[in-house]
């Protein structure tokens, strides 16, 4: 009824190629952004911001990164945690070496280190595909974690290998470290997410994105239309790792603030992979939906027994949480293997026809 595109004619290719060609979509996105910027920071509790919004937004960037690599370029990677760790330790080293450097610039630069490491560990993708590649990327995961754990230089010789984020200000406002208000941290992360989503969306609808998707869908045919496979794959690794690196820096500096290497172990890689599978492979929207969904579930599961007043032991709650989480993954894969993004699309189709079934 309200979601109709009738009467909206496109008279130029530019209009046809817009991210949101339909007026209602544009209005909806503006509304969501308005709520995110103007409503959420003022009405939500610090607890909600810190346990759900901030990690979800940070994972949006990580999921976006993995989605570039796996969803768009078709290279399955299980090294996300390792690349995030590179970003985190690069952030830590840079901000402790150059305390004067603006922290936002530190975040953006830390991704560059992750990108370089990503290209290095992406080299096997020139020869191997699919699960062989996935297992090979685990090499990045395990090697990098070991490196940060064992080489004291990375943690400034902290005896337990722990790194802590010192406080940093931007324009006189404390944005990270002790004393940074949840609202400020939230708004900073939100802004980065919006910017990166826009940049990635632009990339994937341009030459780069089509190159990646061609390699994903059929690498032989891609080669025969003139795509240099090496360049296509390594660029995907670079950009993907860049995003994961930035996300890792934020994960450390804005969300956890004190981190041991264990925080970036292989479980984190799987969590991000879950996000893009549940959210939708090859979809920017899917990365966002998946990140929020997978971040929120454990929080909800942990609180549910308490909120419902069911008295169960901590141990049991933990096992149940694991079982429910695993079952939900399987359930989602069975119901909609193309993820939440596809569900959203189907819902829009339905809405377009509403109130008629066809």
């Amino acid at each position, binding site marked *: 009824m309200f979601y109709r595109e009738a009467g909206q004619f496109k008279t130029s290719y530019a209009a046809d190629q817009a991210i949101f060609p339909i007026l209602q979509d544009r209005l909806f996105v503006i509304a969501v952004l308005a709520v995110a910027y103007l409503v959420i920071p003022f009405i939500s509790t610090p607890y909600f911001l810190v346990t759900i919004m901030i990690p979800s937004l940070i994972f949006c960037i990580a999921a976006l990164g993995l989605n570039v690599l*796996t969803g768009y370029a078709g290279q*399955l990677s299980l090294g996300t945690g390792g690349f995030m760790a590179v970003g985190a330790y690069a952030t830590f080293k840079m901000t402790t070496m150059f305390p004067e450097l603006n922290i936002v610039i530190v975040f953006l630069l830390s991704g560059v280190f992750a990108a370089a490491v990503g290209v290095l*560990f992406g*080299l*096997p993708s020139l*020869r*191997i*595909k*699919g*699960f*062989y590649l996935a*297992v*090979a990327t*685990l*090499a990045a*995961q*395990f*090697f990098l*974690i*070991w490196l940060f*754990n*064992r*080489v004291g230089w990375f943690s400034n010789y902290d005896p337990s290998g722990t790194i802590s984020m010192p406080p940093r200000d931007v324009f006189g406002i404390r944005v990270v470290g002790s004393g940074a208000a949840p609202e400020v941290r939230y708004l900073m992360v939100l802004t980065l997410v919006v910017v990166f989503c826009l940049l990635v969306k632009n990339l994937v609808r341009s030459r780069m994105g089509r190159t990646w998707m061609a390699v994903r869908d059929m690498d*032989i*045919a891609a080669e*025969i239309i003139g795509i240099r496979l090496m360049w296509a794959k390594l660029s995907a690794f670079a950009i993907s790792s860049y995003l994961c690196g930035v996300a890792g820096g934020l994960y450390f500096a804005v969300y956890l603030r004190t981190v041991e290497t264990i925080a970036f172990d*292989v479980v984190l890689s*799987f969590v991000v*992979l*879950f996000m893009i*599978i549940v959210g939708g492979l090859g979809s920017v929207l899917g990365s966002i939906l998946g990140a929020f969904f997978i971040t929120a579930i454990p929080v909800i599961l942990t609180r549910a027994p308490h909120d419902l007043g069911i008295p169960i032991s901590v*141990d*049991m709650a933990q*096992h*149940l*949480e*694991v*079982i429910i*989480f*695993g*079952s*939900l*993954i*399987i359930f989602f*894969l*069975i119901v909609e*293997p193309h993820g939440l993004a596809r569900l959203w699309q189907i819902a829009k189709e339905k809405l377009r026809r509403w109130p008629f079934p066809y």
Partner: protein
Amino acid sequence: MQVLFDFLIGPFFQIFEAPIFFVEVVIGGMAAGIMYALVAIGFAVIFKASGIVNFAQGAMVLFAGLTLVGFLQMGAPLWLALIATVVVMVALAYAVERVVLGPLVNQPLIVLFMATIGLSFVIEGFGELAWGSDVHRLDVGLPRGSFFVGDIMIDRFHLVAAGSAGALVVAIVLFMQYTKFGRALRAVADDHQAALSVGIPLRMIWVITWSIAGVIALVAGVMWGTQAGIQFSLVLIAFKALPVLILGGFNSITGAIVAGLIIGVGETVFEVYWGQMMGGATENWFAYVVAMIFLFFRPQGLFGERIIERV
């Protein structure tokens, strides 16, 4: 210069100075390698029949071990407990086929892989919910202790592990080559659709495959449990088996054994002679880095079938 010497030449001096110690290190590595291979075979069997990389194999090892311990603690004699555990593993295979694999037929393999990760969580949570999450000791009366051959100390238990791995491989190969099920299984592995069209019951084949993987998990569980107790960390041995698997070539059972030995020996020797210089715990990544470098030159693994691309 000193660093280069320490790294490139020093360790070889150590090896020559104490050859017996070196042999013992190698033997220890082989023992570890066999344990990895035991898990990797479980992966390979399922991959052969369905193309699925079953991430839940590690969780199945834990589950089988926990179930066995559970039955033993309930006072069942060993033979009964073993049979009961096999029954449970077959039931698990059936349930997995019904609930997870059946509905996901024809989905891309990455989706199936993700589903097995979810499954891994479920099996692990379920096993610990049913049997508790403490470290359980497992003693099924396997021989312990060691004896000497010349100057070299050999652990009896390692011989048993090697023997059972060998027996498993022989049994699987015989089963694959000489039984009707085995033939059907190989047909399914080649082409699902074609196998269906000649009347092979796909779903039953999958139940059988997962049951075999369950039994392999039980053997692996008994071995690992005897060595280190049944505990949560067994889930993580899946990560040890994966590089073994790709080094050997995904669908080769012999490959799993050979690659298991290579990696077991390689990482032990590397850790003992080089790892200390680098801060230790190099076995966390050694297998992966070796597998990664090796695959760069031979993408199909040691024994995998050559990948021929056609257009």
